[in-house]
């Protein structure tokens, strides 16, 4: 197929050619970035939590309040929950992954440091490891004699009584690697405010209750403090028990004290679903925009293609009369579209890169991976060819006899 005649034709139709090119370029640039953002969001939604999600239930009760017997009541609650058939583990803790409310603290490697090395979230509560289904990959889980009561610890901290303050801590693998890259974390010390804590265990993964910066999503530590805040996690033996266990647990807790308000009661699957609802909505919206963009662009190519064919009916007739076959005509329009799409894609790639740079500055997105460029190009080539097929077939159907009319 000769390209030169096509180019010389295009030079006579600069505006139309320019419009097709710019439309393809803009679509290419936006779709590349939109798909990239969609993938980012999907990655986020599939974030590992490190807990046995399909077996976990979360119940939060309000206003056990500052009553004198809160520890006794928590013990009673836990004992009752353990009795429910289908319950494997229970834990009373201070916060839960994807729970959105968290307590965090700055961590130092040296108590004399002015600024903290990193900010990590603090989980505390007895039986968190088995209760959440955490995987301890180095060292040991926290043991019963590591534990102290939360209120006792708080008083001790204030009174500077180091005896009643925990001395050991578990942290996540990610946090360990960030603190001591390439080194063994076990036995090392971190400082919470000026309290020294020795790392005795490393868990594979434990995501934070609320995630600001994705890079810090698993900077979590587990402190050996008993909690009595009415936040319970129940781990069931198998996922199909969940609904039954949740209903039974709520009934049981109501029975123990009917004056409590149930703040939250849900499975971890629901918590994950709720936690990422914004990401899901955004991804859905972007998919919609991409489809709409591609459709609008395709329709634009169809419209302009039809116009072009109608405008050139006579020339096509002449070519046919001079011996061009139908497939010659078909190829002509297809090649023309291919050329325009190629220029559009080339411009679009540069634009896509530019938009990505802007997004990197304003929305803290990473760099667009190179794989998006060939895939985007292929997609637009295919759409261009499909869109031009109709008008090109109509062009190929122009009979040679048109050439003899009104010349």
């Amino acid at each position, binding site marked *: 197929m000769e390209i030169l005649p096509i180019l010389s034709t295009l030079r006579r139709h600069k*505006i*139309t050619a320019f*419009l097709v090119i710019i439309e393809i370029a803009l679509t290419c640039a936006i779709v590349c970035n939109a798909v990239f953002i969609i993938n980012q969001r999907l990655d986020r939604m599939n974030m590992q939590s490190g807990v046995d999600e399909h077996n976990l239930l979360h119940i939060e009760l309000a206003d056990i309040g500052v009553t004198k017997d809160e520890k006794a009541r928590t013990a009673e609650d836990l004992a009752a929950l353990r009795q429910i058939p289908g319950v494997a583990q229970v834990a009373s803790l201070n916060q839960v992954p994807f729970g959105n409310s968290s307590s965090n603290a700055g961590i130092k490697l040296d108590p004399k440091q002015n600024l903290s090395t990193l900010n990590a979230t603090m989980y505390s509560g007895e039986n968190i490891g088995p209760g959440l289904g955490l995987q301890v990959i180095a060292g040991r889980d926290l043991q019963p004699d590591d534990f102290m009561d939360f209120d006792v610890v708080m*008083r001790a901290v204030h009174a500077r009584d180091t005896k009643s303050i925990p001395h050991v801590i578990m942290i996540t693998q990610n946090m360990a690697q960030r603190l001591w890259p390439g080194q063994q974390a076990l036995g090392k010390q971190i400082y919470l405010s000026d309290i020294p804590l020795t790392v005795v265990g490393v868990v594979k993964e434990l995501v934070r209750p609320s995630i600001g910066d994705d890079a810090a999503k698993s900077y979590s530590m587990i402190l050996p403090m008993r909690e009595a805040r009415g936040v319970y996690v129940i781990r069931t033996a198998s996922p199909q028990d969940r609904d039954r266990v949740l209903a039974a647990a709520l009934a049981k807790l109501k029975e123990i004290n009917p004056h409590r308000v149930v703040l939250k009661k849900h499975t971890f699957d629901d918590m994950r679903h709720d936690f990422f609802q914004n990401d899901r909505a955004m991804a859905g919206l972007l998919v919609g925009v991409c489809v709409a963009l591609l459709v*609008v662009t395709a329709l634009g190519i169809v419209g302009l293609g*039809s116009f072009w064919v109608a405008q050139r009916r006579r020339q096509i007739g002449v070519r046919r009369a001079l011996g061009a076959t139908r497939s010659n005509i078909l190829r002509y329009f297809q090649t023309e579209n291919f050329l325009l799409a190629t220029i559009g894609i080339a411009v679009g790639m540069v634009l896509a890169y530019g938009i990505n740079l802007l997004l990197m500055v304003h929305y803290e997105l990473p760099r667009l991976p190179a794989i998006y460029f060939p895939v985007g190009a292929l997609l637009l080539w295919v759409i261009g060819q499909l869109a031009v097929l109709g008008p090109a077939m109509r062009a190929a159907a122009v009979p040679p006899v048109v050439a003899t009319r009104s010349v």
Partner: protein
Amino acid sequence: MFAYYLDLAFRSLRRNTMLTALMVLAIAVGIGASMTTLTVTHLLSGDPLPGRSQHIFYPQVDPDPKRTDDKEPYDKLDYQSAVDLWSAHRADRQAIVVDSRLKLSDPASGAPPVMSMMLSTTSDFFPMFDVPFQYGGAWSAQDDVSRARVAVISADLNQKLFAGANSVGRTLRLRNSDVRIVGVLKPWRPSPQFYMVAGGRFANGDTSDYYSKTEDVITPFFTGLEINDGSFWQFTCWSLPARTGHLQDAPCVWLGLWVQLDNAAKVADYRRFVADYAAQQKALGRFTHAGNTRMRSLMEWLDFNGVVPSDVRLQTWLSFAFLTICLFNTVGLLLAKFLRRSGEIGVRRALGASRAAVFAQCMVESAVIGLIGGLFGLLLTLLGLWLVRQQPVAYADLARLDVPMFLLTFVLAVGTSVLAGVLPALRACRVAPAWQLKTL
């Protein structure tokens, strides 16, 4: 002449319905997308106190001994600083704000308690923020000091507990204390819930919670601290507090202070007052550094906190890019449409129509397409806003079309199509009549 062009435009649009439909669709979809996001952005970035916001300020000092002057102070104040600044009464109006969760019930009905948010503030809050009352009114300045057990409730809560009746004088149980209702608000939904905005720079763009509904119950500040002692959340602490939830003497920041300053001289005076206060606290040894004070106006504060969620901003950019593509698409299609009629245009020109007349005719046709596209775009905008309202975000209930946005829909639609029509119309009016007539 205009009526004639309009008639011609409709005829021409009917002649090629496919092409017309394509153009109308492109404009409608582009308008629908951009107006939906623009409406949301407009609602979220608006001034929550139009006409007053320039007089409202948010003073900050830095009580953290470990920090230095070159950093941004914390977004909230510690108890001592907030109460000192408030009780000096150096501004035209001043109010401390803090919110907390608590169990709330109507002791008369015996219904089970519900968890609600309580705002604890001082009496100036209501006149300063122009809060509308349905029944009763605010408590007095004396009630602030004497820790009166009184409360103002929201229209929502009044509807829920008292079926909308005048409940002034009735009793409400907040946690374990009874308070007397002195006022019931009219529906009040500032967007954002500006007086509680803080910490936006740590939110990573996820700021949709700033558009939450206002609290159900409002109590005097000191009363609230007593009633709900042990349930207050710190913004942050520089060392561990002795008791969780009781922050009056804790090394923590957790209170917001808003002041109203009616003219520039007072603003300058108050800035000096805050700086002097910090210097005095440093002299007393409570602050280690004094230079780190700020006082932003309400809109500056919202801007500093980046209250419009980054997803919403991203969506707005995206939809305008989308509209641009629709614009180019329409340019192409209009070009096709006008040039296809070169013969007709040639005849009109030969019969004496000027270039300007042909141009005007083409522009009228573009505008008609824009108008029809705008009409469909309006429907799509309404659909889009309905979709936003189905989203589980705090600002969902705000997403409605108001009059300016309704008008803007058409302005944008006609503007887009007229802009798209300029180039094709210029080409059309340059058609050479003689050449066209020859080929007819």
